[in-house]
C-alpha cells in the first residue's frame, strides 16, 4: 500500500526539470540527487516531500532525455509512485527498471489536487482519492516482478540467486 500526499504538476514535465540538466555529469549519490529533485519546477519539493508521497503529472510525463537520474532522484526522495495521463516511453521503462511505480490514470489526475491525500493498492489495483476509487488493470506479470524486486538489477540478482 502506497499512501501519501500528492505533488501535482502539468503536462510534459521533462527530465531536465525533474533532475536539472546542469547536474548531468556531476557524480552524485542517490541521497544527494534527492536534494535536487524538481528543484527548478518546485523549490518546496525536495525539502518537504515525505516517503510515500505521489507525483501527479499530465500528459507525456518524463519527456526529454533518456537519463534515468530523473527517476533515481524521485525514488531516492521517497516518492511512492508517479501518476500521469501518459508517460514518455523511455521514462516509463526507466521508472519500472528502477522500481518506481508509474501509473497512467487520466481521470484520477484530473480529480487530484496539489496536497490531496492519495493511496494506491497494487494488489487490488485501486487508487483512492477522497473516497473515490479509481481502478487500474493489474500490472503485467513481468512489470510486477521487476517492481516487487525493486528494479531490474535487484530482479536479476534475485533470479541468479534462485538459479544458484
Amino acid at each position, binding site marked *: 500500500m502506497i499512501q501519501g500526499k500528492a505533488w501535482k504538476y502539468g503536462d510534459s514535465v521533462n527530465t531536465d526539470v525533474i533532475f536539472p540538466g546542469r547536474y548531468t555529469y556531476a557524480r552524485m549519490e542517490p541521497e544527494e540527487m534527492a536534494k535536487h529533485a524538481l528543484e527548478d519546477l518546485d523549490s518546496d519539493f525536495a525539502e518537504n516531500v515525505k516517503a510515500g508521497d505521489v507525483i501527479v503529472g499530465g500528459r507525456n510525463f518524463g519527456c526529454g532525455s533518456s537519463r534515468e537520474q530523473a527517476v533515481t532522484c524521485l525514488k531516492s526522495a521517497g516518492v511512492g509512485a508517479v501518476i500521469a495521463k501518459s508517460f514518455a516511453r523511455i521514462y516509463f521503462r526507466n521508472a519500472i*527498471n528502477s522500481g518506481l511505480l508509474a501509473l497512467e490514470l487520466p481521470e484520477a489526475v484530473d480529480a487530484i489536487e496539489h496536497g490531496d491525500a492519495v493511496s494506491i493498492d497494487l494488489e487490488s489495483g485501486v487508487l483512492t482519492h477522497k473516497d473515490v476509487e479509481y481502478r487500474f488493470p493489474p500490472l503485467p506479470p513481468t512489470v510486477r516482478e521487476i517492481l516487487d524486486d525493486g528494479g531490474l538489477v535487484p530482479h536479476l540478482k534475485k533470479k541468479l540467486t534462485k538459479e544458484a
Partner: protein
Amino acid sequence: MGKTVIEKILAAHSDEHVEAGKEVWIRIDVRSARDFAGASVVNNYRKAFGDQSVDDPAQTFFTFDCNAPANTIRYAQNQQVCRVFAGKHGIRVYDVDSGIGSHVLMEEGLAVPGATVVGTDSHLNIMGAVGSFGQGMGDVDIAYVFRTGQTWFEVPATLRIKVNGIPGPHATAKDLTLALVGTLGSRGALGMAVELMGPGVEGLDLAGRITLASMATEMGAIAAFLPPSEEVLAFSRSASGRDELQYPTADPDATYANSMEVDVSELRPKIAAPPRPDNVHDVDELDGEPVNTVFVGSCTNGRYEDILSVAKILQGKKISSKVTLRVSPATRGVWGRLLREGWLEVLHDAGAIVSHPACAGCAEGQIGMTGEGEVQLSTGNRNFAGKQGKGPTYLCSPATAAASALRGKITSPERL
C-alpha cells in the same frame, strides 16, 4: 493467428508467447552504447555488477558519434571511460573516426534482417531499414543488457500504412518521410510499430529506407518496417557473410491496430518549418525565404546517395556567397567512396566544407551551431528549439538543401 513483422522478430527472440500488448523477455543480438550515455552505462554496470563479465563481448559495442572527435573535456573523459571498460571486457569500440553508430552497425553486418539491436541512441529504430528491430533505451536498461543479453519489452501494436502511387522525380525519400510525419503528427503512431507497404515504398533503395525508418521516432513510433528488399538482403548478407539471412515479413492474417492509405503520386518536395518536425509544408510555399546556413548529413540523410544528389546539383556551380554549406557523410566508408569518386572535390569547388563522419549537425557543436536569428536548412530529423543552436531550423531533403544553397533562399529542386 498471424504475426506482424515486429511480433515475428520478437517471437524469434523470446521463449514466451508474443503478441501485441504483452510484456515479454527478449534476447538481444547486438548491444551498444554511444559516447552520449556510454559512460553512464559503464557507471551503472560497475555499480550493479562490479567486475562480472559482459554476457557476450563479441556482440557488445561502443560507437562514438555524438561528439567525435571530442571537442569538450567532458566528452573526451566519457569516451575514455568507455574505452577502458571496453579494453577490460574485450568489447570492440568503433571510435571517433568511424561515423554514426547505427550506420556502422548496418555496414559491419551486425544489424541484419531479423536481428534485435539496442543502444543509447533514440533513433536506433533506424534499423527497420534493414528489417531489424532497433531500440533506444536508458542507461540502466543498456547496462542490464550488456550483462545478460536480455531485456523486457512491451510488444507494440502495429499500424499499417499503404503508400499508393509513385512520386515524381523531384520527390525524394525525405519528402515522402516528411509528408508521412506531417500526416501522422508527432503522436500519430505513438507507441506503435509501423508497417509500410505499397508501390510508393517498395522501390526505395537502402538510403531511402534509412531516411524513412530513422524518422519513425518523429512519428512517435517504436519502429517502422518496409516491404522486403532484395537490395537490403544482398547488402546485409554480404556485410555479415551470412547467406542464410531472410527478410522478415508479416503473415497475411496478421492483426493490425489500424490501417490507413496515403497517395504520393502528386507528392512535391516538402519542408518542416520550426519548431517541430511535423510542421510540414510544400517547399514552394516558403519559396524565397532567406537562408544563412545549410547542413547535409545525419543518420537520416548522410548516405552516399544523399550526398551524391547534392554534389550532382552543385557540379560546376557555386553556392550563394550569403550561405555556408556544411556536409558530413554518415560513415568513414561513405566519406571514402565520395573521396575516391571525386565528389568531395565537386563539393569543395562549389563552396561547401566537408567535415568528418559523425552525427554532426544533430549533435551539439560538432559541425557548428546557429546563433539567434541564423536560419538553417538541415537534412537532419529534429528541429526543436535549441537542438541545432539558437537559430530556427528547417528540415528538408538533400536536393532541397542543395537548391537552396545555390540561391541563398529556400528553393524547391523543381525550380532548377
